């Protein structure tokens, strides 16, 4: 009897030990790096971080990017998931096609959009060959901040909308058809069925999708690096910059802590906003 009780824990032990050794331990080391300098406990690293002239722009850029990208992705993922859920044929084929960008690394995704927007890129050569412009435009220059921003938004939306959609399609599949029929009989037109039935019953999946996406949005790095270099600083880029260019592990660790704190805060917020009371679950 005793051995069967212990079995699940024994089976979980390797994974648990792996996480403790390769995640929790380095995490503690990073936290120590962030809160100490020369062996003494201090907030100096955080002061250096926040007093840097680029800091407020970095924070603003990251937040702005998340605030624009996540709602666009949510709206797109919801409409795509609704359409996909209604398909009777070719549903998995379409899901696979939508999921292709998920198979690419974010750097590769950034490079794809770079080949479109750069001076010798697709967009310029098309515009020139169509005779719309005389010579290539430098879209991603420092004087075109909004173009860089738009390019990053496009890249991010293109790359990571499918993951939300896949989660939402799975969630929609769990809602019994009878609820929609009842709503239809009792007078709800399609839009009302979406807002009164789909959205409330989809809360658990929305929660998962949003938490995943919001966390990834605060960690945005490679797409921005590929498209803007350092023209559009974001938190993760600054972390990299302090660690490898400026060789200051303490400040880099402070940035990492800040990203973690923001991610946790938004996760808690989403858990609260999209909570479903136990008695009202499906």
């Amino acid at each position, binding site marked *: 009897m005793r051995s069967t009780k212990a079995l699940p824990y024994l089976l979980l032990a390797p994974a648990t030990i792996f996480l403790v050794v390769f995640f929790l331990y380095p995490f503690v080391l990073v936290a120590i790096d962030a809160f100490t300098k020369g062996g003494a406990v201090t907030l100096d690293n955080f002061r250096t971080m926040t007093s840097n002239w680029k800091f407020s722009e970095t924070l603003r850029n990251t937040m702005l990017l998340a605030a624009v990208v996540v709602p666009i992705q949510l709206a797109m993922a919801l409409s795509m998931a609704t359409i996909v859920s209604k398909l009777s044929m070719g549903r998995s084929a379409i899901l696979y096609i939508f999921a292709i960008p998920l198979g690419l690394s974010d750097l590769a995704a950034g490079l794809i959009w770079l080949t479109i927007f750069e001076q010798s890129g697709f967009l310029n050569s098309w515009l020139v060959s169509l005779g719309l412009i005389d010579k290539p435009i430098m879209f991603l220059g420092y004087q075109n901040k909004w173009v860089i921003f738009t390019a990053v938004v496009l890249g991010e939306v293109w790359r990571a909308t499918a993951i939300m959609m896949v989660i939402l399609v799975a969630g929609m599949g769990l809602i019994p058809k009878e609820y929609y*029929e009842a709503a*239809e009989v*009792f007078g*709800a037109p399609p839009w009302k069925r979406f807002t*009164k039935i789909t959205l409330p019953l989809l809360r658990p999946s929305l929660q998962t999708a949003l938490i995943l996406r919001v966390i990834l949005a605060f960690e945005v790095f490679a797409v921005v690096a590929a498209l803007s270099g350092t023209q559009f600083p974001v938190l993760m880029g600054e972390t990299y910059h302090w660690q490898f260019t400026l060789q200051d592990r303490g400040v880099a660790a402070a940035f990492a802590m800040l990203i973690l704190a923001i991610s946790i805060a938004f996760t808690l917020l989403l858990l609260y906003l999209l909570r479903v009371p136990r*008695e*009202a679950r499906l």
Partner: protein
Amino acid sequence: MAEIQIKGVAKRFGAFTALHQIDLTIADQEFMVLLGASGCGKTTLLRIIAGLETPSDGEVWIGGRRVDHLPPRERGIAMVFQNYAVFPHLTVYENIAFGLRMQKKPQPEVDQRVKRTAELMHIEQLLQRYSGQLSGGQRQRVAVARALAMEPDVILMDEPLSNLDALLRLEMRAELKGVLAHSRTTAIYVTHDQVEAMSLADRIAVMHQGRIVQAASPVEVYRNPAARFVGSFIGNPPMNFLPAKKSGEEQFIVAGSTLKGPKASGDIEFAIRPEDMDVGPGGIPATVRVVEPLGAHTLITTDVDGKIFRVVLDSNAEAKTGDRLSLVPRADRIRWFDPQSTSAIQ
């Protein structure tokens, strides 16, 4: 006022025909039960009336208005679903109010109608609960209340009692009948349970393989089945059938005894309900196989010419396995069927 007319409605799913040319008129305030075994097309017909399914052919009219091209919400109907479909994310109150809110009724009216129907269904103390906190019977009541609150012209019910336990089903059956009679709506009720059908219906439409075999009052359906199927499907135990050999003008030999029958050109089929026979001289010879005393009466399964033949006798009748009985059918209760077309011969 909502008379329902179904004109030549057919439904095909690919090569499979679920409904063949259904014609049926349901009078205003009538309680019509669609009765049949699973797969007979009764639910498909109900869903076509509701607008949840489109007919391949034919027309549906409700209250003098052709509705088969309209979405469900514009047909003046309400529906009770087999699995209740009580929304889990809304309270009982909001569930009942759902349709009224969709019609943008003012809050005082919503409140008054929700409270009244909740009272009618005895769930007024559950209004703030969620579906997850209710028993199956309570959910059923919410589903009915939600339909009644709409004050619809027509109420459609798809096996509403099939998920309840036997005792609760009995209780809800009686209650439904009372509530619906009082509400003066036209009702269409789908079931595979013949007892439910008999006890609720003003008229029963018996369905078989996508066709309506007979649409008549419960007593008529029971006493005068229009087809062999109706006799074998309705009644517990069902009708007994024996081959009848033509022996002369309006004369037939059934299991050795000669009976007066209808005009027919050849051999036909004799049918009798188990309770329509008495033990007496000169009847059908039967060998007792099983005796089941059921209290009020005794069900005896016998063997007539190698065929199962059941008879319901008074509970003080004494019979035991192996006895030979002579069963005399009551002349006015004998029915005859054409073995080819399976329909009744008058």
